[in-house]
């Protein structure tokens, strides 16, 4: 009889153990599946963060745009400065034309002075004194000049010449002679010539001697 009781007790214990395991297993499984059933992406916290990410990305894009805009500005301003400087150089080059300019080198005759006008019978004589820079006698020499009013308009062009000869290294005076009245005008020598030989012609520079009558 005890054997039977023991047998029954053993059977009951085994059944109880199996039931317990089944229940525990159900519990463990329930806990895991419960946890995994949470939809993270649908959760309120995740949604909040998702919105935050969108806002942050917008701010990032704008900050990048800011940088691009400033770089564009830098490039455009740089280009503009380059253009401005080149145009400035252009004007400076142009203006050089109107600054002082030297005459041709080694003129054979240099204008030393221009005398007062000698007027008679509707003719006007203008005495011009030149220095012969060569050591040889010049048999012919001529200075071409222009007469300008106060505004710089040319009112007459003429020349003074001589066939009387000019000794080497000497000063010689000769006449511009014509019917134009130079009163009030400024006489500016432009060029000289001593004949048709080579190097016998040259231009005077802006530093040439002038005279206002």
């Amino acid at each position, binding site marked *: 009889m005890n054997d039977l009781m023991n047998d029954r007790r053993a059977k009951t214990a085994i059944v109880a153990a199996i039931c317990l395991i089944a*229940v525990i*297993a159900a519990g463990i499984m*329930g806990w895991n599946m419960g946890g995994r059933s*949470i939809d993270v992406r649908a959760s309120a916290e995740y949604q909040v963060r998702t919105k935050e990410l969108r806002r942050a990305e917008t701010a990032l894009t704008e900050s990048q745009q800011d940088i691009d805009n400033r770089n564009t500005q830098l490039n455009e301003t740089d280009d503009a400065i380059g253009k401005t400087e080149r145009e400035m150089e252009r004007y400076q080059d142009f203006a050089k*034309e109107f600054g002082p300019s030297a005459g041709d080198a080694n003129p054979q005759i240099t204008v030393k002075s221009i005398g007062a006008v000698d007027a008679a019978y509707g003719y006007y004589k203008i005495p011009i004194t030149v220095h012969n820079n060569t050591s040889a006698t010049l048999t012919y020499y001529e200075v071409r000049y222009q007469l300008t009013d106060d505004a710089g308009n040319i009112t*007459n062009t003429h020349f003074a010449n001589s066939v009387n000869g000019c000794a080497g290294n000497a000063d010689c005076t000769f006449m511009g002679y014509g019917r134009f009245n130079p009163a009030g005008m400024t006489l500016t020598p432009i060029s000289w010539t001593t004949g048709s030989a080579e190097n016998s012609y040259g231009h005077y520079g802006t530093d040439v001697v002038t005279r206002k009558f």
Partner: protein
Amino acid sequence: MPIEGVKNTQVNPVIVVVATAVVAMMMFAGAYAAGRSATKPTDSPEYRALVSDIADVKKRTAANKARAKELTDEVEQLEEKQQAADKRLEEAKQAYQRYVPAGSVKDQPLTVESLDVAFDNSDGTGMHVHPRFVVRNTSGHIITKIEIVGEIVRPDGSVVSDDQFVSADDIRLMPGRTAVIEKVLFSKVGGRGDLFKPKHYYYQIASDSQSKDVQFGGDVTAKVIS
């Protein structure tokens, strides 16, 4: 066959199974709910990745803002430089325009202001045709030589004499200024009633070694010799 003296304590196996199942299901349901409520979304890897992304984006934005500030300073400096350059350009332009006023440069380097052709004895050598031009320098440069070429024609258009030069060979004519270019034509090139017709001209500027040949425009017409 039931044993005497022993109570029948055996439980029905069906009841055991059903009871276990019920308890297990209740356990499952309870554990499921408990597991669900114990799980925080904020501990999940997806959430943690999201938080990390946000931090990264914010970091990059901050770096951009710092760089933008540096660039703003550079832009300001460059704009100051531009203002200085603009000022220097204006000065150079004004210095140039003292010599070449705006509007004084035209398509024609020489503009004929007037032409008079007299038949007179102005140089004392006898009656000759005496054309007298007043031309304005509209080239924008200093002109050093002007040679005007014309012909003399009868009223019917037939040519009396060709290639008549009226020149000023050595001058320094500033931009915008006028010059009187006249000549007494020495041979018997025509008489009163004929017309002096300007055709073209050569002019040379200070920076060139050669002269240019330019045709007069249609606005420059023949003048009767009087």
